[in-house]
């Protein structure tokens, strides 16, 4: 048996279904946003951690000159090394169309049944593959343009073509997902490697340090010993990748993304609370007489408060019923999508208990917290005042400064428009909360546009400072003059520059060595690269033994300043360099950022004691579109093959840009979804406000109709009032968007691209939001306006 007071609560909820629906929906959106993000995060981190731990990740991967099995055996015996494993990896062109080639990274594994580190797992087909067979990483199969059972045609450095049968699939969580790298991965045996013409040797070393994997200092010292040992055995370490312990590489991107989205989700929940405040305040105002009556028959303040808090609790419960199942389903979809994107095994649908607890807590507590003040102040009314209460107080127009200002607007404006305009300011507290909701929603919306514009501009700058169209990597040193001359014969090539590349590690003043980073050595005075300088200056022809470091290197070596002299270890040689400047890191299509140091070509040649350092050819073409770059790349491939020059990879700048754009799009889509949710909360808030306004002014609507206002006029009056609120929120939102855009852009830049983005405030975003908020406001006020036209004049005028 429900007690009469709770019956009142339920009937109050039921009697104004639109109001209940709007409040519940508004809270639901907040719970949905928070729940979806939290659920996704929990599922992601659990499944990803479990999946990642299962591959037994190594402490470091060293890319070296070829070495033999003996080194691996001796490393396994070394103190501080728990495990070591060696593989051979090579990048070869894979035929994906009549004249289309794409890089394929082939990895030769010695014993498929004894993979000890960074485990590659069987997904489908034989294990191991037979000779002349390849297993393709499952997420990269579509990039090969083949299916299991098909033949893959690869081109060897000498120009010969070989066909490998796709025998099955593997799952390699340790590779940069193919969707980001754009590179398919294949796994072969050493027999197949020999058949392809390569020696039975290793060039990649996976090492797991003993002891506490999270003890960075310990791991570093072990790796330094390993490095020394490898180099003592004659295998130069080209570079070493040291992943963060127990952390999947993509998690570096996912974690901040989830945090940013989570903050926005909580904001939507918080804004949903504003509608609760407005609704509860309006309800209490409408029920002042009822409150007085309840008090007159013995109700205490606490009892009445509980009554209304109970109502808010029901709002929260109803919202939970809507939000929990939807957020769980959406989180499942998002996690599945992300699992596919970053290539991990998703354990399937479930609702984690802690997420459920979070949803219930925020779903009930946020509305209660929002309603507490209006309820507490509303029930304090005295019996005498409550029973004497006539009409709606607090709505008297004409007393405030704004009212007086609005009163001065007369003459030119038609009265219905004047009415809408002045009605907008009648309930100022309600207006402020509605404006705040819409403005914050708008600010985030504009901020997301700004992030997008900043990302696009950063990408444009990437294109602007990278003035080459095609890059060719060679399998060995062929002499700059030769490879440049060959390139110039290819139609469409305007300029060709041979750049030296090597790897370096900083030898710190205390003797310890830093992480590997790439040394890139363009010819002095090159026009093909114009990095954005953060500090100092770019290399000039006169800069001798000078180096420009990018911001990624600085992250690992934060003590370096412009003008410092630093010692670098390159190919076992230690040389001293003067830091000429710090450059903004360039965008990369992968999660892995090892950093780059730029030196002049001649200085690198001198440092590594080789007149022709291993090279990379940068080529400028006459046209810069993707198709043209691709055709030149193919022509270059043919040209080098016919000359007996072995290339390991040819990439076009367009392809890199597209890969980066793809990642940016994923990010902006997620941000846009949350911004849209905030927009929806804003619209619901406005709809709620307009419903309350219409409800409270029903009699005025009746009067308007009695003196000749048609349905259209009434509709227009209410819609224009809603649009006025929307338009008013715009400048506030645009102003708030300034700091929010900057913070969001900086965060996205730091966390996702590893460098601050070029900050651009999106004016088009602000204008778009203006159009959007006008449409949104018109739509949000249409329903209440339509309701106003349905009001019967007789009914609204009859209860005097």
């Amino acid at each position: 048996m429900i007690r009469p007071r709770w019956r009142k609560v339920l009937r109050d909820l039921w009697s104004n279904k639109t109001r209940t629906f709007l409040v519940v929906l508004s809270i639901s959106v907040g719970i949905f946003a928070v729940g979806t993000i939290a659920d996704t995060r929990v599922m992601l981190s659990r499944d990803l951690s479990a999946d990642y731990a299962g591959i037994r990740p190594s402490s470091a991967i060293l890319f070296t000159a070829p070495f033999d099995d003996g080194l691996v055996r001796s490393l396994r015996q070394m103190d501080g090394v728990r495990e070591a494993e060696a593989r051979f990896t090579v990048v070869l062109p894979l035929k994906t169309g009549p004249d289309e080639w794409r890089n394929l990274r082939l990895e030769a594994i010695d014993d498929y049944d004894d993979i000890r580190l960074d485990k590659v797992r069987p997904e489908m087909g034989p294990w191991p593959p037979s000779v002349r067979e390849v297993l393709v990483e499952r997420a990269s199969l579509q990039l090969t343009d083949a299916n299991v059972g098909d033949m893959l045609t690869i081109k060897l450095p000498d120009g010969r073509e070989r066909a490998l049968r796709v025998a099955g699939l593997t799952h390699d969580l340790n590779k940069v997902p193919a969707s980001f790298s754009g590179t398919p991965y294949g796994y072969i045996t050493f027999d197949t490697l020999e058949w392809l013409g390569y020696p039975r040797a290793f060039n990649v070393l996976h090492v797991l340090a003993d002891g506490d994997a999270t003890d960075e200092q310990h791991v570093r010292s072990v790796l330094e010993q390993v490095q020394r040992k490898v180099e003592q055995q004659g295998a130069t370490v080209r570079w070493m990748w040291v992943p963060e312990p127990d952390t999947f590489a993509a998690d570096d991107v996912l974690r901040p993304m989830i945090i940013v989205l989570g903050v926005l989700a909580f904001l939507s929940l918080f804004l949903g609370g504003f509608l609760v405040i407005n609704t509860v305040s309006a309800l209490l105002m409408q029920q002042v007489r009822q409150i007085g009556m309840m008090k007159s028959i013995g109700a205490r303040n606490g009892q009445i408060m509980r009554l209304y808090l109970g109502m808010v609790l029901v709002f929260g419960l109803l919202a939970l019923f809507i939000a929990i199942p939807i957020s769980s389903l959406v989180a499942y979809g998002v996690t599945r999508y992300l699992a596919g994107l970053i290539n991990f095994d998703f354990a399937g649908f479930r609702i984690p208990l802690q997420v459920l607890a979070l949803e219930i807590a925020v779903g009930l507590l946020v509305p209660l917290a929002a309603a507490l003040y209006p309820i507490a102040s509303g029930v304090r009314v005295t019996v005498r005042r409550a029973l004497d209460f006539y009409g709606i107080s607090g709505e008297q127009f004409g007393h405030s400064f704004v009212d007086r200002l609005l009163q001065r607007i007369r003459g030119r404006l038609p009265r219905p428009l004047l009415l809408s305009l002045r009605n907008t300011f009648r309930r100022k507290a309600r207006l402020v909360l509605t404006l705040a909701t819409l403005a914050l929603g708008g600010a985030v919306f504009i901020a997301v546009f700004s992030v997008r514009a900043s990302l696009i501009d950063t990408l444009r700058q990437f294109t602007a400072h990278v003035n080459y169209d095609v890059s060719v990597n060679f399998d060995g040193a062929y002499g700059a003059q030769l490879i440049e001359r060959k390139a110039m014969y290819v139609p469409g090539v305007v300029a060709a520059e041979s750049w030296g590349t090597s790897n370096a590690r900083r030898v710190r003043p205390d003797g310890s060595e830093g992480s590997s980073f790439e040394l890139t050595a363009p010819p002095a005075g090159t026009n093909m690269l114009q990095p954005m300088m953060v500090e100092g200056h770019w290399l000039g022809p006169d800069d001798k033994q000078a180096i420009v470091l990018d911001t990624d290197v600085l992250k690992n070596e934060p003590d370096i300043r412009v003008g410092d002299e630093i010692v670098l270890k390159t190919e076992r040689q230690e040389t001293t360099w003067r830091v000429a400047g710090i450059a903004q890191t360039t965008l990369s299509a992968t999660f892995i950022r090892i950093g780059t140091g730029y030196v002049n070509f001649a200085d690198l040649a001198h440092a590594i004691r080789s007149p022709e350092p291993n090279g990379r050819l940068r080529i400028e073409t006459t046209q810069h579109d993707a198709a043209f770059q691709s055709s030149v790349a193919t022509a270059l491939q043919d040209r080098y093959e016919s000359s007996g020059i072995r290339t390991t990879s040819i990439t076009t700048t367009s392809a890199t840009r597209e890969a980066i754009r793809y990642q940016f799009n994923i990010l902006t889509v997620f941000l846009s979804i949350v911004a849209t949710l905030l927009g929806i909360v804003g619209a619901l808030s406005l709809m709620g406000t307009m419903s309350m306004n219409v409800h409270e002014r029903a009699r005025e609507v009746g009067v308007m109709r009695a003196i000749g206002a048609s349905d259209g006029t009434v509709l227009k009056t209410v819609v224009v009032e809603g649009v006025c609120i929307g338009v008013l929120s715009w400048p506030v939102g645009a102003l708030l968007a300034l700091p929010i855009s900057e913070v969001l852009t900086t965060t996205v830049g730091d966390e996702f691209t590893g460098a601050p983005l070029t900050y651009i405030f999106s004016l088009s975003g602000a204008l778009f939001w203006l159009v959007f908020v006008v449409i949104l406001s018109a739509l949000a006020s249409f329903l209440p306006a339509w309701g106003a036209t349905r009001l019967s004049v007789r009914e609204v005028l009859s209860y005097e």
Partner: protein
Amino acid sequence: MVYRWLRGKRSTGTSGGHEAAHLIDIRQAVKRYESAAGSFTALNGVNLQIDPGDFVAVIGRSGSGKSTLLNIVAGIDRPTSGEVIVGDTAVHLLPERHIAPWRGRTIGVIFQFFQLLPTLTAIENVMLPMDFCHMFTPGERRGRGMRLLEQVDLAEHAHKLPTALSGGQQQRVAIARALANDPPILLADEPTGNLDSRTAEAVFRLFTELVDTGKTIVMVTHDADLADEVGRAVILGDGEVVDDAVNHRPPPVGGG
């Protein structure tokens, strides 16, 4: 002349079709409300004819159907059965979308609680019906509004908000608003019910002056004394006309 001619016509008792035999012609009007408590008949076969220039008081107890009668004349409510003809318009058949503009042009409504829009000044309230019904050119509206406020002695308060006016002043603004579109008929529901006796007297005087200019006024009132002073008093009881008395009141000025 027109007034007399129409009165003469009424005496013939003919009203074929929807021709304007009377300015207001209510025939066998029944209004029944259905509710959870059961059926309630507010008007039970009411027949009432009102001619141009009539000043009619509708009196009766609470629940006798007075306000319902006004509502069906104004098109605010529709009769369950019967006919309501105003001028040459069959109000009971008028499509919903046409009712508001028709009412705005034909009928001025005056309420007991004045019902001025609180965010508009006196002059703006008066101009509002002209805007709604697109009467007069936009340039003419302000001048007309001021003249109407002068007519009710409130020109100096034109730019005040309703909250700055007394009850009597508000009711006079409401009357000026009712006259805005120069409607032939004014319907007033207890127009003096919320005013002190002196102010009520002033409002009543204004009504008689309006009748003298040819307006037709139907006024619902509880006040039997007031009813005695108008040209005609219709007494309603339980939804039926129980008495329809023509008072002997001096003919309107210029009425011949």
